[in-house]
């Protein structure tokens, strides 16, 4: 098996992640639900995870690290906290449905900035033109389809200058690119635990620059006589029993990323991406969507003349190469890039991808093209 669908979920994890999940299932109960050893073990696991995330993403206060089920959950909290009906919201032309659908659901007026792939200046130009009329900005850091790295620092700077709250979708950048909560000054940064942070599925993180409004209401294990949700983070946004085994795994994933550093992981993936793009650029009948790796994370999309992307992925899957086709839950990104009709075949890398796998996958793609 050659697994190249890491932008959906990283399948290969550091061994410590699986060990931690298993150990937590055997020893940890529910945090905030008692003071016995099994509960306090769980509490310690959860707090360590908050501390590790706070360190990696420069949050300062671990209580501003809210643990969620996934990035979609985190984005829903963030959007529901800041965006109301008729709020004017700026987004990029490369957003995922995890951003689009909640914005549509609250009735926001959506304005799209930057529709040209790999055109950072174009994105910024559009944001500069419209930021004065915006109530909020929701922006992906990296396109989940094309790996396009958006100019998030510059967009954050514009938001700070105009006092417009910023929500960052870091689904494809957390663990791969530098992400500094304090420098960005974002209202919220949302991310999954199960992609480049190497946690299990069912884990996610919301970094909070502001307090936020609960999406779910229920038990938090404290302040129980209060009919309202607690005022304090993170409990305010964490109703219900937590995924402690998942969080235990996420903690080890965060440590792995911290040891390797996002910069080191990005450097490794960029080198692999360049090798792959060079190799595939010599294959006739393929169209690659690449920026020569300059403004691109470890994600490469391509189309094959006359072949539906899903059919191409199925053929690769039969040969043991697992990639993803279709629209990748991001129809807006495909509309921006002109690939809406057939979708793209997406290859996404991880630190566990080796050069030999890239060569074998490229040879199989060449055989099918």
């Amino acid at each position, binding site marked *: 098996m050659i697994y190249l669908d890491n932008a959906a979920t990283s399948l290969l994890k550091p061994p410590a992640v699986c060990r931690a999940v298993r150990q937590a299932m055997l020893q940890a109960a529910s*945090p*905030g639900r*008692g*003071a016995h050893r099994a509960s*306090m073990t769980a*509490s*310690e696991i959860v*707090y360590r995870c*908050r*501390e590790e995330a706070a360190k990696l993403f420069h949050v300062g*206060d*671990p*209580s501003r690290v809210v643990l969620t089920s996934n990035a979609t959950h985190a984005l829903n909290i963030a959007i529901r906290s800041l965006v109301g009906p008729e709020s004017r919201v700026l987004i990029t032309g490369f957003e995922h449905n995890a951003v689009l659908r909640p914005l549509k659901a609250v009735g926001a007026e959506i304005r799209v900035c930057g529709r040209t792939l790999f055109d950072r200046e174009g994105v910024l130009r559009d944001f500069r033109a419209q930021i004065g009329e915006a109530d909020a900005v929701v922006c992906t850091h990296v396109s989940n389809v094309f790996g396009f790295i958006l100019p998030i620092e510059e967009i954050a700077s514009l938001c700070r200058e105009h006092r417009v709250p910023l929500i960052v979708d870091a689904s494809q950048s957390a663990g791969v690119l530098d992400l500094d909560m304090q420098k960005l000054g974002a209202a919220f940064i949302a991310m999954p635990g199960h992609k480049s942070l190497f946690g299990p599925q069912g884990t996610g993180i919301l970094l909070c620059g502001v307090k936020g409004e609960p999406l779910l209401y229920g038990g*938090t*294990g*404290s*302040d*129980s*006589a*209060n009919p309202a949700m*607690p*005022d*304090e*983070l*993170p*409990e305010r946004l964490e109703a219900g029993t937590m995924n402690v085994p998942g969080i235990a795994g996420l903690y080890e994933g965060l440590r792995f990323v911290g040891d390797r550093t996002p910069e080191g992981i990005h450097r490794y993936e960029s080198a692999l991406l360049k090798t792959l793009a060079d190799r595939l650029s010599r294959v006739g009948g393929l169209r690659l969507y690449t920026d020569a790796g300059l403004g691109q994370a470890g994600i490469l999309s391509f189309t094959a003349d006359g072949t539906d992307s899903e059919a191409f992925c199925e053929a690769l899957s039969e040969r043991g190469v697992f990639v993803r086709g279709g629209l990748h839950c991001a129809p807006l990104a495909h509309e921006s890039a002109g690939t809406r009709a057939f979708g793209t075949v997406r290859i996404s890398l991880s630190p566990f991808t080796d050069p030999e796998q890239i060569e074998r996958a490229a040879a199989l793609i060449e055989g099918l093209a």
Partner: protein
Amino acid sequence: MEKVLILCRSLTQAQRSQRLLERSGIVSAVVKAPVALTKAGCGYALSLRRHVADAVRLLREADMLKGKVYALSGGNWSERNDDLS
């Protein structure tokens, strides 16, 4: 004074406070607060037996002293507003 409880607004706040004290070499434990001491029910607290005055000072300086302080003496809890030295 047998031990002191510093009430916290949440489990996370108690854990954060415990870490702060730990960095100054003060040992404390995160415990469930007695229901009778918590206005809102199901609260957490830091339990200490030593260095109580230093702990209260450190938490106050860090703006992390958010709850009341109780001392256990002769089996009874009493609120403390003094410097506990």
